[in-house]
């Protein structure tokens, strides 16, 4: 099948949907400028004109209200932020209006708004350009939260998000943009709330979100060379959550590591650990382990950044402890970094 990048997949999904449905428009800071949100909004202005693709003042609060108001009045806006950190300025509109208008109107009003947000990382992004915080948003009832990992996920989930009559936040990790993968040319939907088994295995379940799926794949290859077959589950959306795919896997393997691309404390990993404890207790052969960012703001300098972010090494070490393995020699392995990019395919 044809191979395109994650970024191209996002762009293709939006363009195909905009051709199909004239009620869709795309907007946000920098959306039509020369950088085109890392390329993901390329050609949209040229194809669809300034009414359907426009730049905005740096006014996240009101611009989110704009999307909500347009959505409740017949349109399907896509609002884009190049960093999650900027989305926090819109928290009032997100948590007090977008999430609740359907409920508060007794179901008369729906908010078909897509908010795309890019999770930054690397080259000194620091503590205000690197957050993900998907669980913070997932905590609020009334918002769907999606984290596409592969290029096919990016296209299929974006199309589904646009067609959904509810508000959907789409978290796109910047390091996933470069990877290539097989993506159908035609339009297709991936139902939000269906997880994906990225790798089959019998010894250990790794539930990973977003970028951490790349690290989990790498870790699984290393573990496989050492006789351990890890199963990787990508839930793909936090809300709604495909609980069954996780429960089925952990019930089979009896072991669970959650590798989340976010802080650990009160995070998505905690939610999954609780769910596994509640629903797979009798299958567990060892305690559940959560992996995520260090509980600090994100630093700028590389050696501290390396300490802040977990990677394949972290996963391998936790698997060793969980399975009582001897320490695996990782000296000949190379790991992903800002320079050593993951190019795909999965």
């Amino acid at each position, binding site marked *: 099948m044809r191979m395109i990048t994650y970024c191209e997949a996002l762009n293709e999904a939006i363009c195909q949907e905009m051709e199909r449905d004239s009620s869709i428009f795309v907007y946000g800071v920098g959306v039509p400028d020369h950088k085109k949100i890392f390329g993901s909004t390329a050609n949209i202005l040229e194809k669809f004109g300034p009414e359907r693709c426009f730049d905005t003042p740096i006014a996240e609060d009101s611009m989110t*209200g704009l999307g909500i108001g347009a959505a409740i009045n017949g349109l399907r806006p896509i609002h884009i932020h190049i960093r999650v950190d900027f989305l926090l300025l819109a928290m009032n509109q997100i948590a007090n209006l977008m999430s609740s208008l359907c409920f508060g*109107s007794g179901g008369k009003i729906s908010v078909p708004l897509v908010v795309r947000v890019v999770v930054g990382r690397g080259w000194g992004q620091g503590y205000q350009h690197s957050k993900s915080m998907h669980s913070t948003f997932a905590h609020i009832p009334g918002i769907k939260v999606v984290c596409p990992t592969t290029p096919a996920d990016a296209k299929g989930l974006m199309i589904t998000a646009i067609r959904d009559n509810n508000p959907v936040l789409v978290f796109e990790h910047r390091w996933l943009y470069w990877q290539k993968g097989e993506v159908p040319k035609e339009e297709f939907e991936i139902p939000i709330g269906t997880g994906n088994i990225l790798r089959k295995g019998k010894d250990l379940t790794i539930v990973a979100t977003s970028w951490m799926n790349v690290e989990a794949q790498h870790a699984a290859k290393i573990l496989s060379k050492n006789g351990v077959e890890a199963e990787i589950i990508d839930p793909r959306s936090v809300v709604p959550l495909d609980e069954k795919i996780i429960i089925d896997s952990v019930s089979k393997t009896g072991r669970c590591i959650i590798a989340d691309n976010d802080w650990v404390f009160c995070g998505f990993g905690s939610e999954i650990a609780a769910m596994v404890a509640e629903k797979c207790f009798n299958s567990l052969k060892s305690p559940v382990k959560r992996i995520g960012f260090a509980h600090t703001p994100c630093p700028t300098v590389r050696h501290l950044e390396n300490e802040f972010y977990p990677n394949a090494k972290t996963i391998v070490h936790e698997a060793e402890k969980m399975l009582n393995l001897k320490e695996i020699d990782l000296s000949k392995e190379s790991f992903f970094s800002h320079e050593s990019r993951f190019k795909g395919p999965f």
Partner: protein
Amino acid sequence: MKKLSLELYKKMYLIRKAEEAIQKYYPEDEMKTPMHMSMGEESVVSGVVHALQPSDQVLGSYRSHALYLAKTGETDKFFAEMFGKETGMAQGKSGSMHLNAPDQGLLCCSAIVASSIPVAMGAAYANKYQKNNKIVAVFFGDGATDEGVFWETLNFSCLKKLPLMFVCEDNGYAVHTPRWQRQCFPNINKIVENYDCNVFEENSTDPELIYSLAKNALAKMNENGKPGFLRLHYYRYLEHVGINEDFDAGYRPISEFHEWQKKDPVNLQRKKLETIGYSAREIQTLEKDIEDKIEHSIHFARSSKLSDVSELYRGVFI
């Protein structure tokens, strides 16, 4: 013109009497929802809403009893919602602060100060995009102009020339804080004028003057395609939240109230009806009809059932 006077009076009388009914029944503690009363602003809301087309859309704040009643004219779902019953507009999930009737053009009301203003801008963007000629009017207090999002919205809707009317219901206080303690500028209109929109101000409690002002604003908006900003002064008769007076609290003198009460909008308009030829009997008849309608709605609300508890889980997603 005679008909206009009557229609405006009907709107205002409905609002006043509905709120008096809330005052009467609220102490029974069956309406368990924080009441931000509209009493005093009847002419502001009725005048503007009457100037709009029925297909035009409005959004409001937590103080939107008047807006709901002026826009929809209905009281069954209104009171049922106050009583939290399944026959309410949102089955008891919105209460007094989040009134809505999207089919009749009231898109939403929000209890976070200023937060419905940018949503109104989005609704106006959608109307312009869909070329349906609908106007959106967003109602908010002067306290909302202290929020950044008000200025953000003013900027962008003027930049994009959106069919949006800002209606600042200015009672001079943000909760209990007077303007001089909050704002460094003497007159907000002087600032708003720099935003390239149509700016108006009115101190009167005469609904016909406000109606004319709003019509004038709408004509200007239609002519030059720019948003409108209406600063309409009124006096909040009751406490910020609740059904009582609060002049003993000391943050505002009762003399202010007495000045405004002399030109109470409902009384003024009733007198006007008499002077333009309506008989006392005609007026009493229409008042009685409105009072009966309200009593009927209160009976309907009281006799309605609470929803099944499963209602809680409906509407989180569509």
